[in-house]
């Protein structure tokens, strides 16, 4: 297969699933510059691993795996990382907003994304995969941990989310 044909095939696959990459980029970066860099880095890493992709898993799973792994080890040289907000701060902010406006979709969505971004990189990975419909076995397989461990972690993350977003209220 010529390089041009291979590149065209690759771009077609990536374009079909580029939303996954955008999602990861939003969840793992804090500014536009990092967003663009991580986006490019993920595409490059997908391109590198493209020859070894043998359709043994779904294309979306492969892109997910490469994107999340890249986001996990991505770190720009000499760039200060924004300090993530604490769970209490996010929770308080959300409560303050609720006190002046009724619960609405935008508010909840924004609070959810902020809450996910406040988690550690691996926890962010677990909740992202879970919310996108991956089962515990698939998540465990992708992360190289036991199913039991995945379930425990997921339960803990969900509890944290509920606590931040005061879902029980």
């Amino acid at each position: 297969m010529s390089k041009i044909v291979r590149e065209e095939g690759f771009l077609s696959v990536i374009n079909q699933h580029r939303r996954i990459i955008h999602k990861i980029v939003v969840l793992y970066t804090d500014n536009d510059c990092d967003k663009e860099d991580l986006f490019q880095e993920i595409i490059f890493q997908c391109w590198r691993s493209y020859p070894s992709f043998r359709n043994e898993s779904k294309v979306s799973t492969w892109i997910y795996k490469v994107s999340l792994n890249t986001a996990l080890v991505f770190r720009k040289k000499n760039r200060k990382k924004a300090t993530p907000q604490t769970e209490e701060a996010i929770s308080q902010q959300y409560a303050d907003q609720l006190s002046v406006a009724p619960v609405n979709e935008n508010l909840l969505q924004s609070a959810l994304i902020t809450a996910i971004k406040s988690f550690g990189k691996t926890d962010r990975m677990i909740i992202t995969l879970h919310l996108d419909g991956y089962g515990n076995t698939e998540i465990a397989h992708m992360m190289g941990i036991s199913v039991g461990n995945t379930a425990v972690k997921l339960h803990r993350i969900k509890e944290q989310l509920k606590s931040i977003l005061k879902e029980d209220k």
Partner: protein
Amino acid sequence: MDHLLESWNTFDKGLEKEENRRIENFSKESTGLLLERLKRTFKMGLYWNAFFMSCLIVLSLFHLGDPQILLLIGSFFLLLALNLLYSSMYYFKMKKEPVLTDNTRTLLLRYYKRVIGILRFERIWSLFAIPLGLLLAVLYSQLRIYVSFNEMVFEPKILLTTGILLVTLVPLVIIWVVWSQKTGYKKDLTELQDSIRSLEE
């Protein structure tokens, strides 16, 4: 959790609406991964090694009639050649390694191991190259005066200078290498360790 799932799906759909831009081209060089940056530095080190070897070949051409100097240059050339061989093998082994398609835990462990490996390589190289380079320079300058190793007599002044350099400059350079590695890569390594630890909890 249903509310969250709804919000998540809205967020997901929002991305589809917002992002209409098709990807037409992409960069074929990594910029944001520590390991890729280290690999590039490592590769540069290999080029420098080859450059020094070439310099020694050129230097030896000026001393074709001096077997003692040729022996000295040859010994150092051999050391550099061995380093180049071993480092190249390590570099190509790294280059062949699978990319980011492993499971996360395996990837992180391998990634961490490689980063530590390259940094160790740099430290060991500075430990050997600096004192050896210094000794070579002293021996070379002495051989130019005294013609052979047997005739060579070290003047106390030269011995003292060499000793002072070895005792002060060499440790300083080594401390600097260790310090620059520590400050330059500490955050990256801590983040990697944290991620690995969080998967093992």
